[in-house]
């Protein structure tokens, strides 16, 4: 049965979709069966980042409303056999998502995959709320700046109160993924430090993804960064995160100046 993860943040533009694609590809490349699901109905992006935008016939809304079967809507990745995409609809809006429909889709996905990764839309409204509703754990994506961190804090509050797990009184696992971390600006004190963010959010750190041109290049190519340039700093950071998700113990390092040398061992253990 799959682990269902939601990648969420509150704030837009922090790297949810990039992280969903990169982690989905990293896990699948390691042999796991992975479905990435785009919940950003009306503003879909995950298909572009996965390079599958021309292959979308049926989408999440069709499956939610019962007009298509899950097997018809899942798009198999051309590079990795065990990686699938369930795209969002671009012509509908988030009101088309129903609670029952989302629950049924997640339930139907579980037996076929090891990981189901739900890419949440920004905001705290219906789309974001339904993306997290039936997840087992959450990856909270934040940039090291105050507005992003405060929005993430808000999302953590919602994860603890509105998800199905929370309503059953079970604890919801939440992990922090710090993205667009710029070592040069961090050392100049122009961004929040890793410790500052952890001090505010109080959830385990899953990984730190350095700011990099590679991420933009990968997006433009329609390839997850973990596939487009596996040796790049962000790709290696995402690979580490994928291994930590699988339960491996991988030391966590804070990216340093000098083009992303991973040379400073960070004292904090990964989640």
């Amino acid at each position, binding site marked *: 049965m799959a682990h269902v993860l939601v990648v969420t943040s509150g704030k837009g533009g922090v790297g949810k979709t990039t992280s969903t694609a990169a982690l989905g590809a990293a896990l699948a490349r390691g042999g796991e069966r992975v479905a990435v699901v785009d919940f950003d109905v009306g503003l879909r992006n995950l298909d572009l980042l996965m390079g599958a935008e021309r292959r979308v016939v049926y989408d999440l809304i069709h499956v939610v409303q019962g007009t298509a079967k899950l097997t018809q809507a899942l798009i198999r990745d051309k590079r990795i056999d065990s990686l699938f995409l369930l795209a969002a609809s671009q012509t509908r809006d988030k009101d088309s998502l129903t609670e029952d429909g989302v629950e049924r889709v997640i339930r139907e996905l579980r037996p076929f995959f090891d990981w189901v990764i739900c890419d949440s839309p920004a905001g705290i409204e219906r789309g974001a709320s339904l993306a997290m509703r039936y997840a087992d754990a959450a990856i909270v994506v934040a940039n090291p700046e*105050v507005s992003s961190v*405060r929005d993430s804090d808000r999302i953590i*509050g919602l994860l603890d109160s509105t998800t199905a797990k929370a309503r059953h009184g079970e604890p919801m696992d939440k992990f922090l993924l710090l993205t667009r971390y710029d070592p040069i600006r961090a050392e100049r004190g122009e961004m929040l430090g890793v410790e500052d963010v952890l001090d505010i959010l109080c959830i385990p750190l899953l990984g730190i993804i350095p700011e990099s041109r590679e991420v933009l290049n990968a997006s433009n190519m329609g390839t997850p960064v973990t596939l487009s340039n596996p040796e790049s700093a962000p790709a290696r950071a995402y690979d580490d995160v994928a291994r930590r998700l699988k339960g491996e113990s991988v030391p966590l390092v804070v990216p340093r100046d000098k083009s992303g040398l991973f040379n400073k061992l960070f004292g904090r253990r990964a989640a």
Partner: protein
Amino acid sequence: MTTKRTSFKFRGGTFHALVVKPETPIDAWLTDIDKLLARSHGFFTGKSVVIDVSDLPLSKDAFLGLLDELSKRDIRILGVEGADPSCIDGRIPSLTRGKTAEPKQEAAPEIATSAPAPASSFLIDAPVRSGQQIIHPHGDVTVIGSVASGAEIVAAGSVHVYGALRGRVLAGAYGNERARIFCRKLQAELMAIDGHYVMADDIEPHLREACIQAWLAKDGLEITTMD
């Protein structure tokens, strides 16, 4: 030590009002009221009157008719208790009966501040996240963890934060000038006690990030370190 800017004061309060309970049949009851007024013209003059219709099965028209009859007799209605929501047309506020015990505590100086029953304090064993609001109208609030920027705690009594206070705290919010605020690390956006507030910019630099307590002095909120 602190600036004392109190341009507005908002607070809850408990007041006495004359509660009038009409009885059916309404016509007969109004006749009785007329008799009462005949004996004593100024019986309702200057009084705050609340009508209690909780036991009366009144239609909206009958209810509004009753209000008209009362206003004809110069009885000024402050609010209505127990009315069916469909009867309320915005003319008159609907009241819910509050507890009258709360403000009495202030009037009993021999009781130590620690005396309020432990059952009335509220413990939160987790960080209070941005956007969350904790409202506790019956006593103290204790947070084991931080209160995030954008979170708010409203308590009748004191507020204790065993972590960083980055959000807003309103202690003694229902009228209690003896309430205090304690926190391990002061980074608050706003702190208020009994309606007297300070904003982040009003807090002196040497108090920021410090372990502090705040209480209400004669001329406003006073903050001191506890290290």
